[in-house]
């Protein structure tokens, strides 16, 4: 499957900004099942320097600064990504592999590099801290003899069922306990919630950011810019690898989920962050994403 993704981020400042330094996680990374054929970032006003690098988690990161007075900032990223179809069969029966008990035990006993390094993702991270409340919420899914993957799938379904998707209910700064209390949120909150549940149960889990191809209602033409950036999570089963789940849509990411970056939580893969000097007291942000499936 070949996709072209256009992601436009636009800031409008009411007072001019004199200087800004930014970094962006906007270019899709390569993964075992995904290859980014090309990706181009363009910034207006023209930045002093753009520096591409690879971050701690192997994501692509772009650094740039604008050192002239500007009242708006626009970042356009245009990427071509091929998914090779070897990801997973979304309809697969997940009742295989480690049981929850085995997985917990192997997290301690296995000394292979992948498992040792995956232990990083059991720990608290800036935006996901485990708690008894999370552990309790997760408990019904993680019964000892159930396979870890079935349990994670069950958790995904329960979040989908128990929580209401509501863009008005949270912001990027809403803490996890509040999401759990109010049972509302967006994809980022649901991913964090699932990660918190898994970590509270002793399993490594990471945050995946990317895009989801949306299909128009039957008979209608797809609107440009109607897609959105998306987020889901991935869980590690020792000796078996990482497996992804999407609690916002109650499914297993396969052909329509394009990965941009992963990390411990949103803070590791913030699409765009940085600091600005002067001005910018009130800023208007608009984001437009277009995921287009190309004919091959």
């Amino acid at each position, binding site marked *: 499957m070949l996709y072209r993704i256009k992601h436009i981020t636009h800031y409008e400042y009411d007072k001019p900004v004199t200087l*800004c*330094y930014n*970094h962006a996680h906007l270019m899709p990374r390569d993964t075992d099942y995904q290859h980014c054929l090309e990706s181009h970032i363009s910034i207006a006003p023209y930045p*002093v*320097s753009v520096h591409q*690098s690879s971050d701690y988690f192997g994501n692509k990161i772009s650094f740039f600064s604008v050192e002239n007075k500007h009242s708006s900032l626009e970042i356009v990223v245009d990427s071509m990504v091929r998914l090779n179809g070897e990801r997973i069969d979304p309809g697969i029966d997940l009742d295989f592999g480690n049981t929850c008990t085995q997985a917990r035990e192997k997290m301690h006993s296995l000394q292979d590099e992948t498992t*040792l*390094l995956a232990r990083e993702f059991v720990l608290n991270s800036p935006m996901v801290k485990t708690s008894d409340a999370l552990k309790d919420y997760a408990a019904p899914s993680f019964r000892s003899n159930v396979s870890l993957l079935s349990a994670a799938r069950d958790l995904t379904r329960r979040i989908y069922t128990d929580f209401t998707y509501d863009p008005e209910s949270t912001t990027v700064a809403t803490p996890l306990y509040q999401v759990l209390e109010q049972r509302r949120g967006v994809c980022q909150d649901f991913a964090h919630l699932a990660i918190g549940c898994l970590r509270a149960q002793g399993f490594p889990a990471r945050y995946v950011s990317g895009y989801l191809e949306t299909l128009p209602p039957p008979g209608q033409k797809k609107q440009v810019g109607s897609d959105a950036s998306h987020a889901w999570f991935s869980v590690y089963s020792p000796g078996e690898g990482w497996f992804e789940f999407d609690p916002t849509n109650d499914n297993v990411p396969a052909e329509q989920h394009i990965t941009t970056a992963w990390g411990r939580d949103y803070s590791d893969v913030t699409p765009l962050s*940085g*600091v600005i000097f002067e001005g910018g007291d009130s800023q208007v942000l608009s984001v437009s994403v277009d995921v287009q499936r190309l004919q091959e």
Partner: protein
Amino acid sequence: MKDILLQTAWSPPRQLSQSQHQVQSTRDADFAYEQSPDFIDEVYDTSGEQRSHWQYLLSSMASLGGDAVADRQRKALRILRDDGATYNLSAQPQARRTWGLDPVPLLIDSEEWSGIESGLIERSELLDLVLKDIYGPRDLIRHGVLPPELVFSHAGFLRQCQGIKMSSGQQLILHSVDMVRNVRGQMCVVADRTQAPSGAGYALENRTVMSRVLPSLFRDSHVHRLSMFFQTLRLKLAALCPNNDDIPHVVVLTPGAYSETYFEHALLANYLGYPLVQGSDLTVRGGFVWMKSLDGLKRVDVILRRVDDYYCDAVELRSDSQLGVPGLLNVVRSGRAVVANPLGSGVLENPALLKYLPAIGKFFLGREPQMDSVGSYWCGEDNDRQYVFDHFDDLIIKPVFRRSDEHSIFGAQLNSEEKTALMARINAKPMSFVAQDYIQPSNAPCWSKDGLIARPLVLRSFAVANPSAYTVMPGGLTRVGSKGNKIITSSQPQSTSKDTWVLASEPEKQTSLHRDAGAVISESADQGMHLPSRVAENLFWMGRYAERAEASLRLLRTVFMQLNSVEPLSPIARNTLLNTVTRVSTTYPGFTRTDINNAEAIEKELLEVILDENRAGSVVSNLQAMLTSSEEVKEMLSGDTQRVLNDLRDALADLGNALRLGLASAPEEALDPLVTTLLALAGLNHESMMRGMGWRFLEMGRTLEKSYQMTSLLQSSLVVELDESDQAMVLESVLLSFEMLVSYRRRYRSRVEVKSGLQLLMVDQTNPRSLQFQLAALKEHLQGLPQVDRAIGLPPEGRCTLEALTVVQLADLTQLVACEEGTYLRAQLEQLLNRVQELLETTATLISDKYFDHQTAHQQLVTDRWEDD
């Protein structure tokens, strides 16, 4: 930044009498140093014999005698105070504590030292390998040498620093270790400092003072010198320069004057010859780091940082930090600037690493390191945690990540409730705690009022990377605990330090030390030209505040005298004078209020104008602002100046008492010491400051303020015409406040009158206090400033000053003293003075806009802040 905290613990002497000596009638007994049987002692060997390397020192001190040693110690403390050697306990200027120094050094013989030295070199090399691995391949984790959580859960592990490497060999440039002598008599490491190790500067200061107060003892003891260490540091920093087209520009980055170890930052910057900068003095532009200097941006290649890594870059690290340089990390990542120690090196300060060093040594070097570390238990491991719970009484419990609000806990000091509470804290976050075996440190003799007494000690030593390995400072900083304190920190008022003498078997050759001195001098001479604009700004304000305080003090002194004079003031003259006080000090509404009319209310208001530090314009607030500015430019001020500033601090501390006592009689005398000190300060600035840009800004601040004060004084005393005797009284007071009444009488041989008063105060070119004299001086200073383009003629601030000067020069005094028809207002004089004030205000604004930095604080593009864990 919280640093010199030497977190080891001591137990109190088990019997109080052990370290106390019988009071004897002769001072010789002072030197009868005895060992406490339960302690290892630096002076005595296991069989109780005095070690030979101590004999010379102890016998020399004994022959000096107790009074002489006490005298040398007082001298030492005086020098430390004059040098401004402080360890700041808080942001309060009053809380600065002068650095404590014991006159008895710690002695280490060269044989033992060479063992310690090679152990430390090996340890630095090992930690360097760990640092490279943690931010590189992480083989220590992949191969199971380190538990993953030990690194991944540590707040000092900065994922943003992954893969960043300086091109040259070592990544760890400076390393310090805290050591105590264990029961086997061997030095054993209790802590490593790898972030921004502090203490080397204090060690240097200790050495400087000791060599001054005990010169012959020092000389005859053949002590290894410290200069090689600093020389190596200087060469290493120059070699780190990533931009190889010209001379490397190195700066010392400090969090600012309120940092605990600011004295050391200033000392090192001066000693090494680098500018001392704060984060806001630097900026990232076009992919490089620049210093905002008076003549524009100057590229910075190497930053010796004393700011903790986490605070160094708000773009990628702690987003609310204003101490760092936004964008710095990415410049470092692209290899266009080097930070030493590198950002992220705080991860090595995790005390839990000590437990794994033998395994790490085997992994990297094929052997365990020579130098022992204290037995350590990481609560992130179940077995260790259980051990800790079972052995609280023998352990010191520390957080894995140092924070200012978390301290080491000595398990034996806890009652059972506290133990339960601590266990709960550990169980909630086991990975955040580590425990260390309590090692009872060795004792060494210290000077006290009872003679030599035994005190426990910790030695901090320092290593710096050289081209092939590490150079260790011979000796280091010895911290001494006070009796009965189990855990010693620098914030204890009683704790003190010692110089550490590593004794050479023969006098050390000094030739090698200055081998590269030539190169270093040319480098620092070049850097001297680039003054950070923050420093210029603080000098400018230091000058202004000093003059403001002096003008108010002089006037107040006169007012007190006149109020209590034998000839009582008429109400009009009195009110005019009091209004002048308000006007000159700008403490409105003050005496412009009409309800201050009895002696008591007047006295109260006058006292407030002097003492109320919360009232803008008061003498105390001006002096405190002046002292604050002086702290910011500490590295620019001479030793004599430091001494005068200390006197000023003392006079200020004493002012309240002195005034209240003196109110009944001659309150003006209480103000004299302050005036004298301010004069001494001005004199010193004039006599001993290099005529560089710094001096110009200080003098500009002074002349600008003096001109302004003169116009205020003239406005409120002379613009309204009074009847002859009142007018004379007011003018006399003004002249008196400048101590010019005598010169006036000598010159004019008449009763004071307005026209000749104006002549003297406004236009007399021979009077250094006259408005014209000061304006001319200001004009000179402005001409001496760097100009972008001289071809376009006079810059705006130059025009303003020239106009002010010209207005004064062209003034017709006869017209100025004349009143408007039918009024009591000298309208022309008022107009002239107003114009001059306007022009001075504009000049000040223009100088500030042009030369000082006005960047406002930055903010987050996306406000996604969350709490740190």
